[in-house]
């Protein structure tokens, strides 16, 4: 295993997902050269493309070919969900390691194909699950692995946020996002549970509705609950609803509550904040470690050290498989087994 000592060349494919701003900021802590191009159709009045690149300190190139022609060591794909597979595959074929925004893709087949392509090309594939780096989640994993919770029996996950309307309308477009709240918000909790239990899900039941934001013309599900069983007998639910009001003090949050035979533990990784009031209303000033920084640190370390990043592409497939099963469950109104190709 060789390590790379020179500055890494990082290409960015698409600025569709606003997380790219956090990743670009995190990259500044490293000895890297960052260039990229924006892909996808922009909403009117939004800062995208060259203008956003300048703001982020990213060198702007004309198109995907131009980015890949620069022979990047690694590529960050922050495209619309439906474009992940194609762009990540092109990066892999160009010999670049890939950090792909979640969800990995919008179909099990394309996700499995992506993992296989990366392995064949000898490059690393990472799925962007920053919550996994939360200190409270690390503490939960350690507590569970120490045996302090006993045998885990049940998990309740919530990931509620504001509806991503406004300057990124693709999030609520079924064709471009692959679905609605189920696609956007199930995978983070699913990833944490995957890491905690170390086993893929067995079957999934889901229900969803479109009560929240119904008056805003949204055509995808805006509320939903997914119920999951695991082979060890653990039961879990994930509330993925876009239920945080627009005028709330913060974007939303994620919680995970775990019950075991000898202990229970609940984490709320986004709870830390200084609160108060200013002239405009409530103040929510978050503090704590920068999870996006830790995610980028891990990706670059894996690239430099030629090792698999964690979370990897495979967990991207397993978590996508829960979304896929949830969508199939909605169609048949019954629990469905996970797609075996995903596990």
């Amino acid at each position, binding site marked *: 295993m060789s390590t790379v000592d020179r500055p890494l060349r990082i290409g960015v494919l698409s600025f569709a997902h606003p997380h790219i701003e956090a990743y670009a900021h995190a990259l500044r802590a490293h000895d890297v050269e960052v260039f990229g191009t924006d892909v996808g159709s922009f909403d009117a009045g939004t800062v995208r493309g060259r203008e956003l690149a300048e703001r982020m300190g990213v060198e702007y190139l004309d198109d995907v070919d131009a980015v890949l022609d620069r022979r990047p060591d690694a590529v960050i794909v922050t495209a619309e969900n439906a474009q992940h597979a194609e762009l990540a595959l092109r990066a892999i074929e160009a010999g670049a390691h890939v950090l792909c925004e979640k969800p990995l893709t919008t179909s099990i087949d394309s996700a499995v194909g992506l993992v296989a392509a990366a392995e064949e090309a000898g490059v690393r594939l990472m799925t962007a699950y920053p919550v996994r780096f939360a200190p409270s989640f690390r503490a939960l994993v350690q507590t569970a692995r120490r045996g302090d919770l006993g045998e885990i029996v049940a998990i309740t996950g919530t990931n509620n946020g504001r509806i991503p309307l406004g300057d990124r309308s693709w999030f609520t477009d079924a064709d471009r996002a692959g679905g609605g709240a189920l696609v956007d918000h199930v995978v983070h909790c699913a990833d944490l549970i995957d890491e905690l239990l170390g086993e893929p899900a067995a079957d999934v039941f889901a229900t969803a509705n479109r009560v929240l934001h119904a008056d805003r013309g949204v055509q995808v599900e805006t509320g939903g609950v997914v119920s999951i069983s695991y082979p060890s007998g653990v039961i879990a639910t994930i509330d993925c609803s876009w239920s945080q009001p627009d005028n709330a003090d913060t974007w939303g949050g994620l919680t995970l509550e775990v019950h*075991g035979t000898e*202990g229970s533990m609940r984490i709320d990784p986004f709870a830390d904040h200084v609160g108060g009031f200013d002239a405009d209303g409530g103040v929510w000033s978050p503090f704590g470690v920068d999870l996006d920084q830790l995610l980028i640190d891990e990706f670059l370390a894996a690239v430099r050290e030629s090792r698999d990043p964690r979370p990897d592409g495979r967990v991207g497939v397993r978590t996508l498989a829960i979304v896929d099963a949830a969508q199939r469950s909605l169609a048949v109104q019954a629990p469905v087994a996970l797609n075996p190709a995903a596990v």
Partner: protein
Amino acid sequence: MKAVMSSSTTPLRVGLIGAGGISHAHVPGWLEIGADVSVYSLAGAEGLAAQYGLTAVDSLDQLWDRVEVVDIVTPTATHHELALEAIRRGKHVICEKPLALSAAEAVEIEHAAAIAGVRLFPAHVVRYFPQFAGARAAIASGRIGRPGVFRFRRQSAAPAASWFFDEAISGGIVMDQMIHDLDQAEWLAGPVGRVFARLRRSDAGPSPVVTAQVVLDHESGAISHVHGAWGNSALPFSYSFDLAGDRGVLRYDSARDDGVRLAIGIQSSGGYLPVDDGSPSPYTAELIDFVHAIRDGGEARVSPADGIRAVRIAEAAMRSIESGLPVDMDAGGQPSDALPTLIGAQR
């Protein structure tokens, strides 16, 4: 609520059946009301009577002669027989939730009470918790708009009395503990149309642990999910809700309630009932409401139909746990006052 005894100078004669854990939540209410309380129980009646200044009696027959209202606080499996017997004797019946172990039995109790012309009150005390009553008032006034996704959680250390774990006696966690929030889901978001549930019990630890997760689809299109846990011995009692509508969210978590801080050297973890924080007891509020309804013939906040309905939803959840499939609620037995109607009328 105003003092209930103002309309009468004769103390209400109440027969308490049972002297277990929950009797200690009911008795202070009866004393506040000024009731004359007789207690019968297979065990513990003398001790309870001595503690609170009640009259212990040795048999149900002695009890019937002394009282006009009975308050049944026994394990669930006995509710049906005791309620029917009390109704036959012409007594008004207050019965701890669940009203019975099955909806069929609950309906039988309701019919018997209707025929006998006595009142029947399933004691769904959570409707008298100001947190839930406040949420209902806010929803009814349109504060959060149309109910979208509602979440309820209730957890504690596993009850020490082993009968809670015996499904034949208590109905298990869904019927005994989660029925509170199943009732709330319907009280706050309207009739439930479909139920899906999973349950997990483990005896691998020092004491049994059981958890269940119930997902409800309401007829209005709203979703509720209800989480219950009888967990490890250190798990404090807590409950919470997160009620998202299309215009806002209502939240409460008793674990984050900061109204009282207590630091004493006594081991206070565990326990399946709320800690006394000095606020008026919802159990007392519930009993006062029932007595008012008896005295003036009006409706209480919880009706026999509500009690039956809660058992029906719990039964559907248990059928779902058994089959692994979602279960449609049958059309029979609608709740007494569904909120979406109220909301619809206002918007």
